[in-house]
């Protein structure tokens, strides 16, 4: 399992708040229902999409194939062991 707890919790919480907590505190009014529906659907679709992205990369079976030059630059900018 290549998942780390923090991002999963953060994003689930974030969309959980949008989709579960916010609908309760929508101000009363004629449009309350549609507001709630919008919030719930937004949260669920966005969370689902994010989760799919996250899961797809938890255990990558193939790795990116990069040109050596790009790799050298990436390695310098984003951190990595550069051979001396």
């Amino acid at each position, binding site marked *: 399992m290549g998942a780390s707890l923090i991002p999963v919790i953060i994003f689930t919480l974030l969309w959980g708040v949008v989709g579960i907590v916010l609908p309760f505190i929508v101000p009363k009014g004629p449009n309350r229902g549609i507001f709630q529906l919008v919030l719930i659907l937004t949260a669920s679709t966005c969370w689902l999409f994010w989760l799919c992205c996250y899961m797809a990369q938890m255990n990558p079976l193939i790795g990116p194939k990069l*040109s050596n*030059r*790009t790799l*050298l*630059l*990436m390695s*310098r*900018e*984003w951190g990595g062991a*550069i051979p001396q």
Partner: protein
Amino acid sequence: MLKICGPKLSLCGLIISAWGIVQLELSYIVFNEDVVSFQVLMGIFYFVRSVGLAEDLSVMEENFETMEEFYAAADSGYQQNAYNCWIAACLYIFTLLISAQQFYQNSRNSLDA
């Protein structure tokens, strides 16, 4: 004032130059070595840091003996790109001013008419 272009063209120029200023200034920041501290400040730009634009460098196809040489050439390439983008952004600021003036002129004319 001189009227060069119509309302549509001036609006078009306005939009393209606004867009150009934003994007090319960002490119300048991404490429430029001297504004690293600023990049750190802005967080994202530090990480964007040129790698996505690495293939834009003309040095990628040249041959190098040592890695230091390559890095130096790459840095210089980045710097050159930064200058170029900065110049282009300045040209767009100029375009923006002209377009804005023209747009103002046109809208005033149409009000008069």
